């Protein structure tokens, strides 16, 4: 039976703006899964990136606010200086906890909490980056039965983060950005099959 995915989580660092523009830019406006993104950035980076991505992609991209409901077809970017987490009730939360893997927002934090909530229905993706954040998180996603995709280090602007992820866990797909975009569309449930009941949020 075909697995029904519920969410995509993406972690990216150095070279991320370009990579996200490329990847998200190739997804259609009616891409049926929510996309949660951690892009490393400086604490005082401001909210420009969400806007930039929103303008250049068909998808709707926003900087995550506390208690945002996780909606299909929307991309949520972790705000600078906060970790982004997923709550069971289907909404997002933020935390000002200490840095994890030298980062805040940290990919590991997002991936681990998303894995808890979405289990096998989660697609985790590690893209370009010059550090090791995300590899523990991707491992957690795999342990909960989710699927792991890593950008081909040859295709990445900075190869450490993809390489670390590949070393840390058994990755399902190693692909260039184009390939990842195509795969996502293949994995995503078709729009009609998506209609899941609206969840109560408190």
């Amino acid at each position, binding site marked *: 039976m075909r697995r029904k995915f519920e969410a995509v989580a993406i972690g990216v660092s150095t070279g991320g703006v370009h990579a996200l523009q490329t990847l998200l830019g190739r997804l259609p406006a009616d891409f049926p899964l929510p996309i949660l993104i951690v892009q490393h950035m400086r604490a005082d980076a401001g909210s420009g990136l969400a806007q930039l991505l929103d303008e250049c992609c068909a998808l709707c991209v926003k900087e995550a*606010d506390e208690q945002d409901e996780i909606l299909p077809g929307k991309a949520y970017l972790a705000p600078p200086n906060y970790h982004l*987490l997923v*709550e069971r009730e289907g909404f997002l*939360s*933020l935390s*000002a906890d*200490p840095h994890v893997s030298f980062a805040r927002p940290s990919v590991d*934090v997002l991936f681990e909490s998303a894995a*808890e909530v979405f289990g096998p229905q989660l697609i985790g993706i590690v893209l370009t980056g010059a550090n090791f954040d995300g590899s523990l998180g991707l491992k957690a996603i795999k342990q909960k039965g989710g699927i792991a995709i890593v950008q081909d280090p040859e295709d990445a602007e900075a190869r450490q983060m993809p390489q670390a992820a590949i070393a840390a866990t058994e990755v399902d797909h190693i692909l260039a950005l184009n390939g990842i975009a195509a795969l996502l569309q293949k994995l995503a449930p078709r729009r009609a099959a998506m209609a899941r009941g609206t969840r109560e949020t*408190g």
Partner: protein
Amino acid sequence: MKRDDVEDVEIRLLLEGVQQIYGYDFRDYADASIKRRLNHWLAESEFDTFSQAQSQLLRDRGVFESLLRGITVNVTEMFRDPAFFRAVREQVVPFLKTYPFVKIWHAGCATGEEAYSMAILLNEEGMSGRYRMYATDINEAVLQKAADGVMPIAEMQRSTRNYQKGGGTASFADYYTARYDRAILSSALKKDIVFAPHNLAVDGEFGEMNLVLCRNVMIYFKPALKERCLRLFDSSLLPGGFLCLGLKETLERRKIGERYEEVAANLRIYRKRYA
């Protein structure tokens, strides 16, 4: 049942027990981060599972104290979000100055950096002696640190930068004395601040406040507890008083928001309406 579900049950029981024995209620905290921190605490502890920890936890206050330290996050810094402090200086203080005396409440003040930053700002604006600041937190260990007013000297570089970006008008080095690896804050900053324990989940309001700050505390709470806090702040504030939240917290989409006007929406500074 998967192992995870067992763990969820264990955590629920643990928090229940903690509430009944020690009166600290963490059941209304957002699951994702508290779970993360509980797991972290467990990994560092001598116990293998939460059930195993439970019996000692309920009998041994020391174990509970270590849990409490593990699950409350006290990360803070001086003049955190400099643009926010600049806006307070430019858009809030002019109103505060019209009162002979003002009262300020910092809810969730952690180790006091935010309160001391505000004291610096108010003193520079000529309000020394004309305000009383109540800085509260659930965690008494951090309150003790806050009252001591001693900070790692390594923090001072970032503090100085934040202070300048936040519109500071003097020399930041004048506000502390360096002693080995610590910075001892000047007593002029301490004299108008009262540090006291207060638990936002159970305790009541502070009356007649002109300014309430609660930044990066409610992000850890479930919606119902957030609502409780906002009601508490609302009943503590005088009409015309100011409410400041963390940069990622908002009154938008909230009923109580109707009673406030935005002073600096992006910086989450709100003012309670008169009627």
